[in-house]
């Protein structure tokens, strides 16, 4: 289990390298920056964060989810800094015995990350204007 906050691009390839042969379901989520926001063309997003606290909190969220949904493994990576349209800002992967708890846990982890991590995003529009969410 591993939660990470990073400025580097996120590797979304096969997440559980040491394959645990009891995993029957892997559910993943990727949040991707779109090229429009409120119908305006977006150049990129900028994510500000309290990295230390965000890193602690993302791991707390994973621990809670693993225990609550009896997961075999779970990973979550949130990118910060500049993220361009088409790039992944959040990646979550959940390995479980069956799929039902996999879908529920993945959705729970994404919601919790968006509600609880001290991370904020700023729209940088193509027209040069900016605004914090």
């Amino acid at each position, binding site marked *: 289990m591993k939660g990470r906050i990073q400025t580097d691009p996120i590797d979304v390839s096969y997440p559980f390298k040491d394959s645990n042969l009891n995993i029957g379901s892997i559910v993943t989520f990727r949040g991707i920056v779109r090229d429009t926001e409120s119908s305006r063309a977006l150049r990129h997003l900028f994510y500000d964060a*309290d990295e230390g606290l965000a890193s602690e909190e993302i791991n707390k969220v994973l621990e809670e989810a693993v225990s609550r949904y009896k997961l075999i493994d779970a990973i979550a990576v949130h990118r910060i800094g500049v993220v361009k349209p088409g790039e992944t800002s959040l990646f979550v992967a959940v390995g479980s015995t069956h799929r039902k708890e996999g879908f529920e846990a993945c959705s729970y982890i994404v919601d919790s990350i*968006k509600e609880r991590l*001290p991370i904020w995003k*700023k729209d940088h529009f193509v027209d040069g204007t900016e605004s914090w969410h």
Partner: protein
Amino acid sequence: MKVHIRYYAKYVDYTGTKIEDMEVERMTIAELLDVIKLKHSRLREDKTSLVALNSRFVNEGMIISDGDTVSIFPPVSGG
């Protein structure tokens, strides 16, 4: 005593700084927030702000000590 205040995201724009040192009396974080909002009135726009003391989320009833770092967070918008 002196405390360090850290601002994030739009609060950096509101206050014009990322970090600010303040000379204050012994008080709770809630009271410190009132002092800060007197100085930077735009911070009053959000009803709730998350607060961390020395990089831990804390209750606003906590008493601050000399040298503490208090982080003031806008409502989150991650993901």
